[in-house]
Structure formats: structure tokens, C-alpha cells
């Protein structure tokens, strides 16, 4: 299973996507595209469908209607066995972190590489490099419960970017962070995007994209209500 990276297709494309949960519509007739190397924001109040939209991108959910293609792969036609290999091209910063509490920072970040079968030598090099980039090199042996919220967030970001994914998804990445830490996290995302990674950030915090000039998709009660550039 290879990631189609020929640049002809949009990196992410939603076409008339609807998703229901127990007769409650989470997303209704959503159509949008994200180009390769773009950094966009998905915003809206809580319950507007941001997380569902991300879940559809990382194959945790399937659409009830419409089609989604990620780097040319149409998710509805994917075999179950292909999903792990496609997910390896997507880095995810989860809203609830999903850190492994019984593993230290190094092991948490290394897990993304171990799953890919990377050699131990390369794991060591890349994990320490990534931790250094988010200023957590000195916390490599610490367990997640001993870290602050901001530090945990940076571990999650390290894990998401260590394998150099093509797409980075972040779900409320600054939700529990103070403004300074949030600014640091956003700076990291911009740096990753500058290296060519397509970044999609779901947030209800308008301050994150104000004056950024980035494209913003606005959701409300599962509907795409606006698509514009942040001024």
C-alpha cells in the first residue's frame, strides 16, 4: 500500500459527505478540498462536527453518504487491511492526547516508528531529534502523568510528526494550554507545514488563526457554513 503523492489530486477531498450517529446528523453534505502543503483551520462551536470530520480523514469513521479521498485513495473503497498502512502517512494530535501512561516520553514518541518497523538505531536518532525540536529532550525518561498539560501536548505533537507524515491533523491542539504555550505549539505546526506537510487544525479558538491569512472552514451543527481566509 503506497501513498499516492503525485500532486495531481487534492490531499484531502470531501464530496457531499454526511455522517450520522444514531439518527443524529454529525456532518451534513460537506464538500471541500485541502491542497498538498496547505495549512487550514476547521472551526466551529463544540458539537459542530470538527472531531467527526477529522475521524473521517483518519479512517476511524466511514461516511454514510458521499465520498472522501485522501491523497487519491477513496476511503469507501479501501480494504480494512489497507487502513493501517494509510494511517502511517497521517500524524494525529488527539484532543485527549492518547498518551500511553505506562510508557515514558521516549517510548510514547518511539511507538509511531516501532509500528512502522523502523530500526532501533533510527528510532533513537529520530525520537531525540523530534523531542529536541519541541524542547522536551530532557524529559525523555519521564512518564506522562508527571508532565504538565503543555508538555503532554508537545509529546503528542512529537509522536505525530516523528514519522514525517504527509498530513498532520490536530484536534483542539491548544485546548488546555496557556496562551504562551499555545503560541509555541502553533509555531511548531507552522514549521512542520513549512517543510511541506499538509496541516489541518480543528479548533474553536479563533485567536489561533486570526490574522494568519490561512483558509478557514466554519462548521455549525454539522453544516459547512462558510469557507474563507482568516483576516
Amino acid at each position, binding site marked *: 500500500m503506497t501513498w499516492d503523492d503525485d500532486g495531481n489530486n487534492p490531499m484531502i477531498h470531501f464530496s457531499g459527505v454526511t455522517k450520522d450517529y444514531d439518527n443524529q446528523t454529525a456532518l451534513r453534505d460537506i464538500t471541500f478540498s485541502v491542497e498538498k502543503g496547505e495549512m487550514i483551520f476547521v472551526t466551529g462551536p463544540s458539537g459542530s462536527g470538527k472531531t467527526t470530520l477529522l475521524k473521517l480523514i483518519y479512517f*476511524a469513521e466511514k461516511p454514510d453518504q458521499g465520498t472522501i479521498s485522501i491523497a487519491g485513495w477513496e476511503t469507501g473503497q479501501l480494504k480494512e487491511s489497507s487502513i493501517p498502512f494509510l494511517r502511517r502517512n497521517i500524524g*494525529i494530535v488527539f484532543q485527549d492526547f492518547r498518551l500511553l501512561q505506562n510508557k515514558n516520553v521516549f517510548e510514547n514518541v518511539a511507538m509511531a516508528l516501532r*509500528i512502522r518497523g523502523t530500526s532501533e538505531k533510527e528510532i533513537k536518532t529520530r525520537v531525540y531529534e523530534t523531542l529536541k525540536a519541541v524542547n522536551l529532550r530532557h524529559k525523555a525518561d519521564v512518564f506522562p502523568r508527571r508532565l504538565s498539560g503543555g508538555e503532554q501536548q508537545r509529546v503528542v505533537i512529537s509522536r505525530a510528526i516523528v514519522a514525517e507524515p504527509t498530513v498532520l491533523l490536530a484536534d483542539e491542539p491548544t485546548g488546555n494550554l496557556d496562551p504562551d504555550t499555545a503560541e509555541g505549539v502553533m509555531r511548531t505546526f507552522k514549521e512542520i507545514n513549512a517543510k511541506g506537510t499538509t496541516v489541518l487544525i480543528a479548533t474553536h479558538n479563533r485567536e489561533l488563526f486570526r490574522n494568519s491569512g490561512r483558509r478557514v472552514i466554519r462548521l455549525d451543527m454539522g453544516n459547512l457554513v462558510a469557507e474563507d481566509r482568516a483576516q
Partner: protein
Amino acid sequence: MTYAFILAFQSLIREKWINLLSVFTIASGLLIISLALLTVYNIDAATKNLPERFSMILYLDNDIQKEKVDAAVGILKKNHAVLSVRYIPKEEALKELKATLKNSSYVFEGLDENPLPDAIEVKLKKDSVGQETVRKFAGEAMKIPGVKEVDYAEKFLSTLNYLRVGMKTIGLILIASLGAGIVFVCYSTVKILFYRRNEEIETFKLLGATKAFIRTPFLVEGALIGTSGGVVSLLGIFAFYYIVLLRLSVSMPIFKAILFPSDLFLVLPFVGTFLGVTGAAFALGRLKY
């Protein structure tokens, strides 16, 4: 693969109590199986040599001619089931009987003529000493001219047969049911461990882990639990032998006769491994993830 072992070892240590409980449950099961095997093995060994002592007596017609006797002996010798044939003239039979009953010689007082008939003693090959084959052979022997009656220890044969078949059946039932029990213990343990690590597994999946990456540590864990159970049961059976049997044999010499096939028990850890992996595979096969 190496990382699967690391994850399995970490889980073994983290969930030590549930794993220890499983190991000792498996060890108990395998120990009972071993004791059953030891019993069956000893009964089998004890009864194995009994057929060598088995013989049939073919009583011949009164005043049978020598040619007829020779012909009967010839027919018997040609039979593939026969090991040896011995003609016993009635004079020799009486002599043997008198020698046997020398302390009760009064039995023969007043006996004017030999009441015993001529006979042929037939010993069958070890493999042919079975209830059915002997019955068939006896039928065939009765058709030989000059043979009046065929005598053999039918009850002995059926008892021997029942004993061997019975012990083997009980042993097999015990092995099958305890084996299934051990597989179930491994199945339940792996299932519990899987559910306890559900969140971790979900994260693995979202990071791109394949089913093989997720499953392998559980299979390794099942194998390690099974092997450990096998090793503990091996220690148990050897302890039973050295502590119980050898000590008892000092005061009760009959225990010296018990055979201990130590080579046979060396496979216990491998049996444990097999049952552990089987249980884990069943558990993983039934889990939806």
C-alpha cells in the same frame, strides 16, 4: 518481533497476579495430566508382559494316534499367530500334575488309570494375545481333527482387555478435558489482558498498527504463560517423584516398582506452549477490533 516480546514481557510483569494465577492453574492441570499418564504408563507396562505367559491347551481325543497328533501339531505350527507348540502326552501331564500337587498326593491315591487326556500346549505371539484373536484361534483349533476341547483363560484376557482399554480411555478423557480447560484458562487470560489494554490498542491502531503488530504480543504472552505452566508442572512431577515416591519406597518397597518415564515428562513445557498459543489464538480470533 523482538518488540512483540518486549511488550509481552512488560505485560507479564504489569499484570503479574492474573498471569501468576493462570500459570499455576495451567501447572495444576498439567500436573494432573502427568499423574494420569504416570498411572496409565505403569499399568500398561505392568500388563505388557502378561501375554508372554499366556498359553492355550488343546485337549485331544482319547487314544489318539500319533499321526493325528503330528498332523495337528503341523497345522498349528503353520499358523502365523503361533509362537510355540508343545505336545504333552497324558503320562507327562500326570507327572506334571503330581509334581505340582506334591503336597496333596492323597488326591492321587486309589487312582488306577490316568484320567488326563493327551494335550497340546500352544503359546501365541504377543501381538496375537487379544480377546478376539484368541477366540478366533480357539474356533479354528476346534476344527483340527483330533482336538476335543480348547481351554484358555478367557476371563483373564477380558479382564486384561478391560483394564488396558479402561485406563487408556480414562486417561484420554482426563487429558482431553484438562487440555481443553488449560486452553480455556489461556483464552480467558488473554481476553482479560486484551480488554485491560483496550485503550492502548486503540491508540496503536490509530497510529497505524497492523493486526499482526497488535496480536503478536498476546500470542507471545499466551505462549510464555503456557510454557511457564509447563515448567512449573515439570518441577511438580519431578518433586512428586523424588519426594513422594522415592521416600515412600523406603518404607513401602512396592513403590520401587513404579516406573518414572522422565523423558516423557520433558515435553511438558512444550505442551504448555502449544496450549497457551492455542488459547491465545482462540481469544484473539473471537475479539473484534
